[in-house]
């Protein structure tokens, strides 16, 4: 696997990617700002949303048992999986028992996290991704680059070419509306003909056993109502005590994700089809997936379990906006991904994600459940240091810095010399190239430093 640095370099060198990311993330940021302005109590609502999630995480075991009992009482079957592989095995077994040849999948990041698309392929079960963006990346054989807009990295020109190559009756007009219609034509029959519908869950309602999904396209309902079997794969942290708790979280989710007051379609599924119902699945199976979540709760990452997967942190992240989602290398990109990925994929392979952060705090500021993302990222940096995962050059550099920093006179002398040297490189107030830091200045200019250090100026003022 390539390193984060290699992937980030490739992303920075791709001018089309930058345009594509900026078009969607920029729009999302602007729309969210308007939605928050229109909801003056949003700040207090964030505090409440964080408190609801903290309450659930503190009592997660009993709430899961309550959900399980309610869902079974409603006629659903409930399964538990400790790992991604176990979750996939359960899903495949249900599909095989149902004699499924094709499944319609409604976008679920948990499904991506556990590798379900790949597991279905290995089991020889046809998979139709029904969310427009997931359909695009399925055709392109790529992975999602954003949790709300998985095809954010693609421009409309690229999508147009893809549909023309792969759709049976592609669009004629070069408009985004015509492209969406082409996908509608392509997918409708596949959704109606699927043997199994697979979804994730935005919320699991403990007291009723309901599973909540939200979409703007209506593809969840079209994927989950016609097939004979509905399978849900959900992370165990998706629990809320009751519908009114879910309602508070839904108000936060839609505004933070797309800037809408609510998604177009919000559905609560409670068990399979009832006697006399005209439609709906005959079987409903719910797989509750741990995959590292209990470990996060035990190891100081409980706050991360508040995450409702809105994507606001990445839309506002200066690093994500430069490199897009694929460079992060995991299922989840951006700040929330940089916190989650070391848990899912191991810190040794992902330690540099925590460094791909300016600690400007924007992610925490926009998070609807107030996750202290910069603090959690610093936690990974510290752990990486403690476990000796940082490279020798970094350890030596920091060691040298620490040695000098504990000797103030030497430190002042060193900075005075460095300032003079760096100022020589300045042109019109900016430094475009630094010896020994070419990688850093390749994508950035450094402002020319002041003639004297802050401390030197301070002492001068004091002497006046």
């Amino acid at each position, binding site marked *: 696997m390539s390193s984060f640095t290699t992937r980030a370099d490739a992303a920075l060198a791709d001018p089309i990617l930058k345009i594509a990311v900026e078009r969607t993330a920029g729009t999302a940021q602007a729309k969210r700002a308007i939605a928050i302005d229109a909801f003056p109590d949003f700040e207090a*609502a964030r505090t409440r949303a964080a408190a609801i999630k903290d309450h659930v995480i503190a009592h997660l075991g009993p709430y899961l048992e309550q959900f399980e009992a309610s869902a079974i009482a409603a006629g659903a079957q409930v399964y538990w999986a400790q790992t991604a592989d176990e979750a996939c095995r359960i899903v495949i077994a249900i599909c095989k028992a149902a004699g499924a040849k094709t499944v319609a999948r409604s976008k679920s990041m948990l499904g991506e996290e556990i590798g379900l698309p790949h597991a279905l392929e290995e089991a020889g079960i046809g998979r139709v991704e029904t969310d427009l963006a997931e359909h695009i990346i399925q055709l392109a054989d790529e992975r999602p680059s954003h949790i709300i807009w998985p095809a954010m990295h693609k421009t409309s020109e690229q999508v147009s070419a893809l549909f023309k190559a792969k759709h049976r009756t592609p669009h004629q007009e070069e408009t985004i509306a015509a492209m969406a219609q082409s996908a509608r034509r392509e997918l409708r029959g596949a959704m109606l003909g699927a043997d199994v519908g697979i979804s994730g869950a935005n919320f699991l309602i403990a007291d009723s056993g309901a599973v909540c999904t939200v979409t703007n396209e209506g593809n969840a309902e079209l994927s989950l109502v016609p097939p004979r079997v509905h399978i849900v794969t959900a992370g165990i942290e998706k629990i809320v005590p009751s519908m009114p708790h879910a309602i508070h979280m839904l108000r936060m989710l839609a505004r933070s994700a797309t800037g809408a007051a609510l998604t177009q379609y919000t559905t609560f599924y409670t068990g399979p089809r009832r006697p006399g119902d005209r439609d709906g699945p005959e079987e409903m199976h719910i797989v509750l997936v741990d995959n590292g979540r209990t470990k996060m709760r035990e190891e100081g990452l409980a706050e991360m379990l508040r995450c409702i997967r809105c994507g606001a942190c990445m839309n506002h992240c200066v690093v994500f906006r430069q490199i897009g989602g694929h460079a992060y290398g995991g299922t989840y990109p951006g700040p929330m991904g940089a916190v989650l990925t070391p848990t899912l994929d191991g810190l040794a392979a992902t330690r540099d994600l925590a460094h791909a952060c300016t600690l400007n705090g924007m992610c925490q500021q926009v998070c609807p459940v107030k996750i202290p993302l910069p603090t959690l990222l610093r936690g990974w940096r510290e752990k990486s240091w403690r476990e000796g995962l940082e490279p020798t050059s970094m350890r030596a550099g920091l060691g040298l810095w620490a040695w000098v920093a504990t000797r103030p006179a030497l430190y002042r002398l060193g900075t005075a010399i460095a300032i003079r040297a760096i100022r020589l490189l300045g042109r019109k107030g900016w430094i475009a190239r630094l010896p020994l830091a070419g990688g850093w200045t390749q994508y950035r200019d450094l402002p020319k430093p002041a003639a004297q250090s802050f401390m030197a100026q301070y002492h001068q003022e004091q002497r006046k």
Partner: protein
Amino acid sequence: MSARAAILARLKCPAPIASEAAALLRAPERPAVDVTNLESEFLARLALPSVNASHDVVASLTDLPAAIARYLADQNEPLTLCCPPDPRLDVCDWSAFALHATAAPDETATLAIARTAIAETGSLIFETSPTAPMLPNFLTLHHIVLLPVSAIAAHLEDAPLPGPQPRAHYWITGVSGTTDIEGTYVRGAHGPRFLHVILLRGELPHMAD
């Protein structure tokens, strides 16, 4: 040890106290709604670009077919309608329409009755039942929704039914849309491209038990 036992063993924690969970819902922050004027509050949200729905008003249920005919004529669509098997609609004269109960994959127009609607968001609230299938409301191009004015409520907390839940309880807040290509909004992604709400001033007959 089963996966269930292993997960629950790691999540050993006190059972939640109901009053704690209830306290988290005290005086929730939510967008202001003028509860003395729910109809106009609802209609204002319905007209927002994000919801993108049209509306009409009828005095009584018997006026419903004419209102639907008017809408379909404006849209240059035939008088063909997928109609739910709801006995409350039997008082209407549907003789001008070709009615059917099962939606075609490319259905043109479907009628549904909303149990309630929410002024806060402009949402229409539905439940599945033997007289209320779900799929036709998603397959159709034009979704036509009958809503008694008296059923409009203020906030989303007013949407759920108390007690045991139906198989599906769903909220529709506008037409099917997507921003998946470059963040550009397009209506009619997979579901309805048009949502038309017909407000009923009179009462709906009660459903027979």
